[in-house]
């Protein structure tokens, strides 16, 4: 896998969500992603970035355009230094929420993108990596 472009955005306030979403839209348009895939990626990104703000006190996102086997895609890495998730399996279950939300953010984001990876350590923070390919399903 080759990383073509790399960019970082700090997310510390609610107001950072919209510019971030626009940046993701810009990148996915640039690699020629279809509208449906774009919307899926943006929605997943939006979920994760909101989680980061709500539970992780903000953090940073690395935005990369990548290429593998002649297919291009977008990789987003969400990193926060928040309290971490004690039980990742439980957090990935539909309808589980420690806040008062629907509990669909993490499992929903996983269903929306092609590749999803979450690493979390209590007291250290959480890192979520998602990849969506240009011609992903």
């Amino acid at each position: 896998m080759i990383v073509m472009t790399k960019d970082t955005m700090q997310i510390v306030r609610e107001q950072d969500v919209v510019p971030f979403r626009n940046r993701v839209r810009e990148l996915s348009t640039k690699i020629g992603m279809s509208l449906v895939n774009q919307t899926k990626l943006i929605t997943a990104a939006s979920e994760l970035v909101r989680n980061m703000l709500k539970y992780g006190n903000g953090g940073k996102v690395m935005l990369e355009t990548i290429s593998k086997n002649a297919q291009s895609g977008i990789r987003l890495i969400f990193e926060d230094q928040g309290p971490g998730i004690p039980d990742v399996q439980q957090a990935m279950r539909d309808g589980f929420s420690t806040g008062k939300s629907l509990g669909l953010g993490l499992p929903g984001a996983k269903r929306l993108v092609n590749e999803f990876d979450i690493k979390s350590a209590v007291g250290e923070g959480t890192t979520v990596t998602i990849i969506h390919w240009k011609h992903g399903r």
Partner: protein
Amino acid sequence: MNTTAQLLQNNKSKILETWMQNQLQDNSLRDDLISNEELRRQSDELISSLARATSTGNVDNIHAPEYETVIEILSDISITRARQGFSPRETGMYVLSLKQALSAILEEKHSDQPEVLYKELLIIHRLLDNLSVVTFETYIKGREEVILRQTDEINEISTPVIRVWDGILALPIIGTLDSARTQIVMENLLQEIVNTGSSIAILDISGVPAVDSLVAQHLIKTVSATRLMGAECIISGIRAEIAQTIVHLGIDLSNIKTKASLATALQLAFSMRNVEVRNSSKKTGFSISR
């Protein structure tokens, strides 16, 4: 009394003159926004308070109480300038040109003692650099206030409730639906339901760029609140890509009436109220009957 304070005290009028000259010569002077008399009054006030503050012997800690008036005057100037539409450069140059004026006078006074000159210059520069940072901070604060006010205004005007038919309301939502916005939408909608006695509300989300679980949750809450008031809610403007996304996210909207476009939502609303829209065979084109 230290030398800096003495310098300010004894050469007040000369400093003011040099400073005024600097300001008037600068290209960025905005005589369209501020009159010369006003500028002179402001500058005079600032030098006087600066002289008072330095006379206490404190020349480096601008957060000390003796600098309160100086900072007050500066903040006042930069906030008014931010509101009047001065650029950051024009605002910053105000304090920085005082630095130039003071440096020039120091140079004249201590031209034969380079060591003293160097020390004095350092003190003056440090002090005025600190003060110019204050100017910038308050300038940006002033601009932020303007932005905040505009955000409020946009929120106010961007959530209109339209009465499209007797008993039917429409709410076009444009932009991101966050908690604050949902609150306004809900308030406006519920109030309008009371005012007009409407029984159907159409929420059109064609203009919402992304529907994530938070937006969906806000929509569901709005629909529930409308139902509690005895009215029915239809969500329209669900585009193909958004429909797919909602399904993948796992959001259940099955007990809410949803339509792809405002037109079909309106049709549904008409049929719910037993209103019929049909082409008339006569030359008028179309007629509405109930």
